[in-house]
């Protein structure tokens, strides 16, 4: 327990609220995530998981509250959000690979454009990353010719090319055919084992049990319960969590 507390806090969220018009989507959310921690967020549709995740790299802006990532207060106007984003990788449900570039170019774009690596070094790095996601032979193809599972692995490689120290995943396997899911989860598992700080929204409960250090249950814009997987899955206290689990487990 002591060692947990002493670990460096990577993401600090305090009393964050967000509304879309009348719709109060996030209500007073507070959450700290430590370095190397893997947090899985579960919850019913519309509970605010994506909104929360997207707020961590300011794709959505909170109405109030504080968000500190890597020591940068991104709820502060003066913070250069582009600089902070360089250290936060994000993987989307719909991959969002750049359609106008090849696989290799997708991975190289950000490091080259942001002056992190020169072209030669970026290409070397990209090819290494392709190896880790097991898609070396796809380097020069257009992204439209890839399967969903391949696309998502490339998207992960693209995010990793910036050498982020936090990775956000928003339902990375929800748009995939079932037989593709395993490959993507495999890559994510390896990433977790390598010590990456990860925040993952997913409906893959088996994966959550296996990989998560902590599971967070969202419902109606609130964190209703959180804890280690064994506790959340095997001994849920919150009534809504129990309800939710019985639904997804028996589906």
């Amino acid at each position: 327990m002591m060692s947990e507390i002493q670990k460096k806090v990577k993401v600090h969220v305090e009393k964050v609220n967000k509304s879309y018009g009348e719709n109060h989507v996030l209500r007073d959310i507070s959450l700290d995530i430590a370095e190397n921690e893997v947090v899985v967020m579960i919850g019913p549709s519309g509970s605010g998981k994506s909104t929360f995740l997207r707020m961590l790299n300011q794709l959505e802006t909170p109405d109030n509250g504080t968000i500190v990532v890597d020591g940068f207060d991104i709820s502060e106007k003066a913070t250069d959000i582009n600089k902070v984003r360089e250290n936060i990788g994000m993987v989307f449900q719909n991959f969002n690979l750049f359609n106008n570039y090849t696989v290799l170019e997708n991975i190289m774009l950000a490091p080259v454009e942001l002056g992190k690596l020169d072209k030669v070094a970026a290409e070397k790095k990209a090819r290494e990353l392709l190896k880790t996601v097991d898609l070396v032979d796809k380097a020069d193809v257009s992204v439209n010719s890839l399967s969903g599972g391949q696309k998502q692995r490339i998207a992960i490689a693209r995010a990793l090319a910036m050498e982020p120290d936090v990775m956000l995943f928003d339902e990375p396997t929800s748009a995939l055919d079932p037989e593709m899911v395993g490959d993507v989860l495999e890559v994510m598992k390896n990433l977790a084992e390598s010590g990456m700080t990860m925040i993952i929204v997913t409906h893959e409960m088996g994966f959550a049990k296996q990989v998560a250090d902590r599971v967070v249950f969202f419902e109606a814009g609130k964190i209703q319960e959180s804890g280690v997987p064994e506790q959340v899955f095997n001994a849920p206290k919150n009534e809504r969590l129990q309800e939710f689990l019985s639904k997804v487990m028996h589906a």
Partner: protein
Amino acid sequence: MKKIVKILIVGVLSLLAFLVTSNNVNAAQTPNYIITTDATYPPFDFQDKNNQYTGIDQEILKTIAKRQGFTYTLKPMSFNAATQSVSSGQADGVIAGMSITDERKAVFDFGTPYYRSGIGWAVKKGSNIKSLSDLKGQTVALKTGTSGADYALSVQKKYGFKVTYFNDSDTLYNDVINGNAQATFGDLPVIQYAVKNGTQLKVMNSKSPIQAGWYGFGVQKGKNAKLLAAFNRGFAEIKKDGTYDKIVAKYLGASATTFTGSKQDNSSVLGILKANNGAFLKGLWQTMLLTILAIILASVWGILLGVMGVSQNAILRSLSTTIIYIFRGLPLMVLAFFIYIGLPGVIGMKIPAFTAGLLTLVLNEGAYTAAFVRGGFAAVDRGQMEASRSLGLSYAKSMRKVIVPQGLKIMMPSFINQFIITLKDTSILSAIGILELTQTGSLIVSRNSQGFRVWAIVAVIYLIVITLLTWLSNWVEKRTRA
């Protein structure tokens, strides 16, 4: 990409600077006057078979200029544009078979009246219309802004006819010959000359011109007194020494072929092409130059406006929307007249017709381009921008590297379509006297009355160019679709 944009912007700016200042350079070398004329008004103003402007007006002007020691640049255009260019200060003087009327005296200072004319009216050869009273319920074709038109309107109620308007004489005559209209009113010598040249009309009052009056050389009221004085001195001289009478006799007494070319030249497509190949080529060149410059500049301007239209800044967005709204809403010809004839009076600087025409095209086509550019960018999946931003790329960089390339691909067919529209729209600029392909066609027809053949030639040339342009665009599109 950055470099290309920079080069483009520098190129565009220096081109505009050149187009605007090149006129001022001319103005510095005085006295060179800009004189406008009606491009199709034989026997006073027209192009001869060598595509030189000639006619009674032109020879009088040329002779006087030589003797009085001034030079001028002739700007042939429609009669209306010719007079308005002078009244708005775009040009220094107008000689275009213009009748001196009280109304015009309010706007122009006229030189010594130089030709006594009057209004004549004509019907199709073989028509059974015998007198003005037979015009009841019929249509009368008129040339805009002429005294013939004024007169016709003044008696319209009395005789109960309808009117229709044209900008050039030849189209007007053909309208009567084809039976769309039953009669026309115009300056008597002009109609007589056309009839002598084979136009199938019958003049109804050759011996008794209506409202006999005088033609005059005009300058903007209160301006260019020196030019007017020189004209008057020169005119007195040529009147006295008989040169004037010789000029008039030359045009009114000569047989038609003297000016219009032999029958052979005019009775076949090949003959017309041969006799006018220089003119057609020049016209085509102007059309191409306008088209190419307009395509490049309108694309740059349109993309800029389009990018503004999807920007994060609300002010830029509404600015873009407003500009697109205004310039898409204005008819091209109105915009051309506004820039060429209206604007110079306000900004106190002459705008050459070519520059005005190009600006018109760029503003109009640019607005259409901007609209589909905006739509094209908006059609790029939102996730593309989010992915790019999430990697740390700025908005501008994301636009340049991710959104613009994909948007452009979506827009490609619209661009090709717009290029073709631009080419066709250049023909509207004939209205401000740019001697492009359409205006060239008008001039040749006004001389040889071979409307069908000449317009067929012009049409085919347009089709050929449009085909080439389409091929080129498709080729480029294929190349860019990696």
